[in-house]
């Protein structure tokens, strides 16, 4: 028991929290942006897989790491565009289309990976992002190694939270996007096209999801393998609800979640006699519990999952 508490004083635990949170932050921001514009994007799990594969493959084929992130974002955006095409102008079921995108994007990622990469006994590796020690700040005791010795994409994720929060709440574009998710008819009345706004939000949100996937293969690990996203996309969908569709709360949700994940990994080594699967279940169980706790007072965007057709009410 003492050992379990001692773990909490370990700086490597707290540094891991930010690392584990990074793909979730990208994913939850992406899902949030789509939903704020009124479209559920269940393609997230596949889009993250796509980003993981595309980012890794770019580096493997000789591109640099930032090029990898850019290609991951672009491929995520492309899958998002497909989801947008099906759900916005055609108004198809967002549930089924999203699942279709997830199945398609994952299958396509595995297929292309197998096609291009010679896979032997162990998957080939790349040289991933190294931790970036921010001068002066990283020398601060305790806080330094936790906050200021992360990899570059982690800082990018944190910046994205601030940017998205600013854009959504403080700019005309953000207002238009939020209004599209609440009442697209009002957007139309302002002379804006709600469908264009929705498509844009889905593409941008999916690009963020792609970045989240790419973090896994270019920073957290150094290789790509099937099933590596491990339900992180679905957890992001749950986190959006938990965060009441707000970027700031989404960051807190992702960090909280990552803390439990990092903690359970370390607890496995300290507590004997408990099957490791029980620890691994914790993140998924926790997501469900979080959903139950907030579900009643969730402020769902009014027009979420309602396709918009001009002149139809």
């Amino acid at each position: 028991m003492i050992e379990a508490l001692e773990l909490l004083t370990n700086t490597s635990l707290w540094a891991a929290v930010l690392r584990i949170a990074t793909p979730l932050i990208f994913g939850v921001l992406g899902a949030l942006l789509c939903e704020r514009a009124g479209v559920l994007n269940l393609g997230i799990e596949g889009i993250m897989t796509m980003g993981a594969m595309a980012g890794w493959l770019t580096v493997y084929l000789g591109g640099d790491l930032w090029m990898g992130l850019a290609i991951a974002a672009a491929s995520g955006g492309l899958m998002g565009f497909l989801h947008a095409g099906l759900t916005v102008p055609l108004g198809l079921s967002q549930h089924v289309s999203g699942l279709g995108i997830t199945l398609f994007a994952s299958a396509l990622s595995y297929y292309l990976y197998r096609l291009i990469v010679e896979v032997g006994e162990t998957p080939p590796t790349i040289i991933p992002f190294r931790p970036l020690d921010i001068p002066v700040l990283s020398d601060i005791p305790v806080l330094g190694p936790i906050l200021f010795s992360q990899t570059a994409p982690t800082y990018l994720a944190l910046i994205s939270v601030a940017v998205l929060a600013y854009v959504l709440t403080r700019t005309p574009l953000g207002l238009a996007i939020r209004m599209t998710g609440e009442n697209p008819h009002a957007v139309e009345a302002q002379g804006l096209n709600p469908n264009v706004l929705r498509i844009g939000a889905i593409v941008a949100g999916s690009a963020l999801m792609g970045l989240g996937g790419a973090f896994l293969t270019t920073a957290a690990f150094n290789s790509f393998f099937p099933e590596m996203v491990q339900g992180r996309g679905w957890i992001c969908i749950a986190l959006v609800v938990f965060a009441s569709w707000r970027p700031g709360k989404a960051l807190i949700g992702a960090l909280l979640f990552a803390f439990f994940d990092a903690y359970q990994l370390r607890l496995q080594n300290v507590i004997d006699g408990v099957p490791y699967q029980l620890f691994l279940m914790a993140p998924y169980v926790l997501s469900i519990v979080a959903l139950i706790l907030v579900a009643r007072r969730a402020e769902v965007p009014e027009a979420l999952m309602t396709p918009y057709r001009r002149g139809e009410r």
Partner: protein
Amino acid sequence: MRLERRENVPLSTVAMAPLAAILAALVLAAGLIGAAGVNPLTAYGEMLRGALGSRLSITEMLTRATPLILTGLAAAVAFRARLWNIGGEGQFYVGALTTAWIGHSLALPGPIGMAVLMVCGMAAGALLLAGPAFLRLRFGVDEVVTTLLLNFIVILFVGLMIEGPLRDPLAFGWPQSVPVDGAYRLPDLVPRTRLHIGLLVAIAAAGVIWLVLTRTVFGVETRAAGLNARAAAFAGISLPKTIMGVALVSGALAGLAGAVEVMGVTGGVTTTMSPGFGYAGIVVAMLAALHPAGVVAAAIFVATVFVGADAMSRATGVPSFIADVIVALSLLTMLVALLFTTYRLRR
């Protein structure tokens, strides 16, 4: 250009939709096969030969189709009532695990035991979906996320059980559950192949579901709940009761898939026994336009792609993941095709 609702939809249009969707998916996937340096027509020829070219390959394909029919029915029943059960995979595994566990030490005459085990598998699947259905009805928690997350929880639970209490001591350290007793292994449908009478069970289930959906009050309530929940409630249909009923039936069907797979094919449970039967069931249901009879045909298509792709991959070197690509693409193209059965483009 805009979409205009069709006034009447001829049955032939509805029947054409899946064929058009599959054709479109095959054309799109042809580009990817071409990228592998293989002539798509050669590849598709190899696929057909691999799945339908011999008596043995046909029985293999039908063996693969059996659980797909059941998970497809599970998705179709749920989606009709707009209950988004994406947890077929998890329900399949609890059905399989329960069957192996009880079937290992059951002492009943063969046929009765088989029936009992199928009911046990169904009960396990039904209970697993009852949870998310309850959470939706009581707390308004979206069942998509809960059923998806439960899939991961269940697979970990299966791993825990087969490395612990249900471990097969005779499996040489291979993580596998104890097998069902030999008395409850489903008899072969075709001698000296893996095809078992589970196929007949699955087809019978499709027939029963068809009758239930078209000939009973429950079927009408299901459809009403899916078409317009508010109008249904106004007409005096108890929405919570209907949703819970649908959840129990849908979960039971996916659980039955697991039970049948264990008794018919694998004997024991492993964490890799399902190549995504639950998820593929969603595609099957959509390709069938949620119709029970269509589910049987769609399951045979999906099974043909999967079994055929393995053989094609061995012959041509095209990665067998192409099967997943084709199946996923056909879901997306089917969505579009379904749209054009109810709407048409007008300038």
